[in-house]
C-alpha cells in the first residue's frame, strides 16, 4: 500500500538542469540556467524579485515548461508534463501562496488531490483510514498537530507545515518550497526550518526560495544565486556568507547601509494622538502619539494587534473604545475615505488583494487614490505626468506605465502601492509590512524613499514582522503583546533584538 508516508525508504535523486531558457512575453525569466540539486542536501535559491527563482522551481516541478534546455533525473531525461507527473517522479512543490482550503479538515487538505486512494466500495470515503495515514505523515514532522484539530485553530506556520505534509504524502525524494516563510512570523519560521532540517536527516533533498538571508544561512548546504534569470554563482557549506550572496544577487556592493541614516531633529509637533484605544473589550487602554517627521514602529507577534491599530487609524476597522485626534482636533473615520481625506494614506498588508488591482495598469493604480481632474473629468495628461514621476522617484522597473501591474515583480508592485499613497501628499503614512517578500535592492529603494519623505515632515507608523527592519528605520518602537503595550523603546539609544523579543513573547 502506498501513501502511508513512511520516511524510511526515501529514494535519493539527483536533479540536473542544463541550459534552461524561459520567457514570458518580452520578459526573459530564465537565461541559460544550469544547476544540480544533490541528494540529502538543502539548496537555497537566492535572488532579487524577478530574478527567476519561482520560475525555475515551477519548471523543475512541472508547473511550467521551459522554452529550451534539458532536465536530467539521476542522469535520465526528465520532462514533467504537470505537477502530478513530477510527483510521480518523486518531486513535489509547495507553492508560495497558501493553498489550504479552510472549509475542509486537515486530512482532506493533505490528500485533496488523491482522496480516491481511500475510496471503498460504492465510492464512499474511508475517512478513518485517511485520517490515520495523514496523522502518520504529520507525526513524521514532529509538529504536534492532530488531524482532529479544527483547521481554523492553526496559525499560518502550521498551515504551511500542512502543505509540506501534502507534499510529503506523495513520497517525494525532492521537495521544493517557494517562499514558504514569506508570510510567517519569526516563531512560525523556526518551526518550518526545523521541519526542513528533519527532512534532510531522512535523506530528502530540499530546494527553497527565501528573501531572508538569516534563514538561508541557517539551513542551506548550497546557495544558488540567480540574477536577471541567470545563475551567477553557487556557494557551498562554509563558503556561504551573507555579503557574497548580497553582492552577487544585486550585482553591486550592498553596503551595510540597507537602512538610511537617521537625522537628529528637535521635537516636532504632535500629529496623531490615540487615547484610551482598546482593540477588544478585554484589552487595556492604549495611548500612542505620532509626531511629524518621525517613524514609529510597532512590533509584536502576528495577531498582537499592530495590524489592527493601523486598520483602525485608516478607518477600515473600529476600535472597541477610545478616541483619536489629528492635529489636535477629533478624528473619527467611518470609512477609509475619511482617512485619505484627512491626509492619512494606507499601505495594506496584502498587496495583491488590498494594495492594488493587479489587472489594471501601473498608471491606473498610481493615480487611483487621487485622480487628477478638472471638474468631473479625469485629467489624463496630468495623470501620465504623475505616474511617470512616481516611476522615476521610486525607481519602478518598467518601460510601459500602461502595462498591467501583474507584469511586475513583487517588489515593484509594492513600489506602485507606495507611489499611489505618495500621490496624495499625505501627512501620515500607515505601513503594514511594506517589504514583505521584497528583495534587498527594492527594499533599499523603499527605505530611502520613506526616509526622504520623513525628513520632509511626513509621519510614518510602521507595522512589521521583520524586527531588523523595525530597528533599522524607526525612531521609536512600541511592542505589543496580545493587544496590550508591553514595551517601548527610544531607538536613539542602542537597543538589541533580544530586548525587544523579550517584550513580544
Amino acid at each position, binding site marked *: 500500500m502506498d501513501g502511508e508516508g513512511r520516511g524510511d525508504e526515501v529514494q535519493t535523486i539527483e536533479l540536473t538542469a542544463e541550459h534552461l*531558457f524561459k520567457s514570458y512575453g518580452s520578459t526573459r525569466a530564465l537565461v541559460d540556467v544550469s544547476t544540480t540539486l544533490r541528494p540529502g542536501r538543502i539548496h537555497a535559491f537566492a535572488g532579487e524579485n524577478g530574478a527567476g527563482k519561482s520560475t525555475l522551481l515551477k519548471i523543475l516541478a512541472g508547473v511550467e515548461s521551459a522554452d*529550451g534546455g534539458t532536465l536530467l533525473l539521476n542522469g535520465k531525461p526528465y520532462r514533467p508534463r504537470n505537477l502530478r507527473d513530477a510527483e510521480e517522479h518523486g518531486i513535489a512543490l509547495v507553492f508560495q501562496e497558501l493553498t489550504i482550503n479552510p472549509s475542509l479538515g486537515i486530512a482532506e487538505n493533505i490528500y485533496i488531490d488523491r482522496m480516491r486512494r481511500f475510496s471503498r466500495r460504492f465510492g464512499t470515503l474511508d475517512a478513518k483510514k485517511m485520517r490515520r495515514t495523514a496523522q502518520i505523515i504529520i507525526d513524521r514532522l514532529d509538529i504536534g498537530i492532530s488531524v482532529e484539530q479544527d483547521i481554523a485553530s492553526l496559525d499560518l506556520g502550521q498551515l504551511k507545515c500542512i502543505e509540506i505534509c501534502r507534499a510529503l504524502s506523495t513520497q517525494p525524494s525532492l521537495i521544493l518550497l517557494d517562499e514558504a516563510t514569506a508570510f510567517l512570523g519569526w516563531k512560525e519560521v523556526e518551526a518550518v526550518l526545523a521541519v526542513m532540517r528533519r527532512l534532510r536527516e531522512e535523506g530528502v533533498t530540499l530546494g527553497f526560495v527565501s528573501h531572508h538571508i538569516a534563514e538561508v544561512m541557517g539551513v542551506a548546504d548550497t546557495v544558488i544565486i540567480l540574477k536577471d534569470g541567470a545563475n551567477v554563482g553557487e556557494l557551498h557549506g562554509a563558503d556561504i556568507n551573507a555579503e557574497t550572496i548580497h553582492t552577487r544577487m544585486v550585482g553591486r556592493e550592498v553596503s551595510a547601509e540597507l537602512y538610511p541614516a537617521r537625522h537628529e531633529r528637535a521635537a516636532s509637533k504632535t500629529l496623531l494622538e490615540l487615547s484610551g484605544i482598546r482593540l477588544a473589550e478585554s484589552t487595556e487602554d492604549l495611548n500612542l502619539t505620532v509626531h511629524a517627521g518621525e517613524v514609529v514602529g510597532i512590533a509584536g507577534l502576528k495577531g498582537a494587534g499592530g495590524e489592527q491599530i493601523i486598520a483602525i487609524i485608516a478607518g477600515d476597522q473600529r476600535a472597541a473604545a477610545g478616541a483619536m485626534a489629528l492635529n489636535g482636533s477629533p478624528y473619527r473615520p467611518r470609512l477609509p475615505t475619511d482617512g485619505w481625506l484627512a491626509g492619512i494614506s494606507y499601505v495594506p498588508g496584502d498587496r495583491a488583494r*488590498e494594495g492594488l488591482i493587479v489587472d489594471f495598469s501601473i498608471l491606473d493604480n498610481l493615480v487611483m487614490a487621487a485622480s487628477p481632474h478638472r471638474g468631473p473629468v*479625469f485629467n489624463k495628461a496630468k495623470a501620465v505626468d504623475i505616474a511617470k514621476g512616481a516611476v522615476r522617484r521610486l525607481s519602478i522597473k518598467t518601460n510601459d506605465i500602461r502595462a498591467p501591474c501583474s507584469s511586475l515583480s513583487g517588489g515593484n508592485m509594492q513600489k506602485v502601492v507606495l507611489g499611489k499613497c505618495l500621490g496624495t501628499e499625505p501627512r501620515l503614512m500607515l505601513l503594514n509590512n511594506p517589504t514583505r517578500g521584497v528583495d534587498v535592492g527594492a527594499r533599499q529603494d523603499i527605505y530611502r524613499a520613506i526616509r526622504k519623505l520623513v525628513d520632509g515632515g511626513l509621519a510614518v507608523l510602521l507595522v512589521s514582522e521583520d524586527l531588523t527592519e523595525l530597528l533599522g528605520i524607526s525612531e521609536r518602537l512600541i511592542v505589543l503583546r496580545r493587544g496590550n503595550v508591553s514595551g517601548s523603546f527610544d531607538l536613539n539609544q542602542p537597543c538589541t533584538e533580544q530586548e525587544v523579543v523579550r517584550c513580544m513573547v
Partner: protein
Amino acid sequence: MTTDTLKEEDPKARDLAKSKQMASAVKSQQAARRRSMGMVKNYFPIALLALLCIAFALMNHRFVTLSNLVTVLQQTVTLLVVALGLTFVIIAGSIDLSVGSIVGMATVVAAMTAPSLGALAIIPACAVGLLAGTINGFVFVKGKVPSFIVTLGAMVVYRGIILIFTSGTTISIDDERFVNAFGGNSLGVPHSVVIAVVLTVVCLLILDTTVFGREVRAVGGGERVAALTGIRVERVKIGIYMLLGLLAGVAGVLNGAWSMAATAQMGTGLELDAIGAVVVGGTPLTGGQGSVLRTVLGCLIMVILSNGMDMVGLDPYIQNIAKGVVLVAAVFVTIDRSKISVMK
C-alpha cells in the same frame, strides 16, 4: 559568431546555442499566437456583426433597404438604452435583473400621465425609474444583500406594482404630443434613435473620461482595493443603480411611444436580452473591464440576428436556439481567461 564554428570547437557551446535558438523560436511563436488571439478576441464582435449583415443581405435583398435599417435601429433603441445602464452595473461587478420590470413601470406611468402632460410625461416616467433604481441600490449597499438577489426580488415586486395599476389590462397611449415627441420622425430620422445616440455618447463620456467612470471600473476590478484607496464604494454602487433606473425610465418612454400602449407584460425578459447584449459585445460579467461601444455592438448583433432571421423566414423556434448559441459562442471567443482565475 556562427553555430558552425562552434560545432567543431566545443560541444557544450553548441548545445547552448541550440537551446538558445529553440528558446527564441518558441518565444516568437508564442508571441505570434498571443497577438493573433488578442486580435480575434478584440475584433470578434464587429466581425460577427459584419458576417451577419453580409449573410442576411445575400439571403434576402430586402434586408439592406433603408426602411429595414430604420426598423432595425428602432428595434435597437429600447434594448440599447437599458444595456447602456447595465454596462455600468456589470463593469462594477454587479447585476440587475429588475430592469425589465422598471421599463414596464415607466411605460405604465407614461401612459397614465401622457393625456395630461403630453411629452412631459417623460418626467414622471424617469422619476419612477430613478426611484426604483435608487431603492435597488440602497437595499443592495446598505442591506449588504447580493445584487442578484435584490434585483431578482425587485423584478417580481415591480411587476406586481404594474399589475396593480393596470389590473392586467392594456392602457393605450394616443396623446399625439407624446407619441410624436418620442415615436415620430424628423427628416426621416426617428426621434428615438436620436435620443439613443445622444445617451450613448453621454454614457461613453461618463465611463471613459470622468473620475466616476474610473471609480466604477476600480470597484469592479477590486472592490477591497478601491475601498482601501479611499473610493466611496457605496456611493459609486448606488450611483450606478440610479443611472440605470433613469435610463430604464427613458427606455420605458421610448417603448410606450413605439407601441402606443402600455401592457402589463411590457419589458418582460428585457433584462436577459440586455445582459446578453452587454456580454456578446465582450464585456465580461466579472467586472472591471468593458466599454460602451462594445455594448452598442452587442445590441446591434442581437437585434440584427432577430431581424435577419425574421426576414429570411426562419422558424421562430429555431431562432431561439440560434440566439442562445450565438450568446455562448461569443463569450467563448471573447472572454479573457487570463484575468479570470475561477469560472463560476
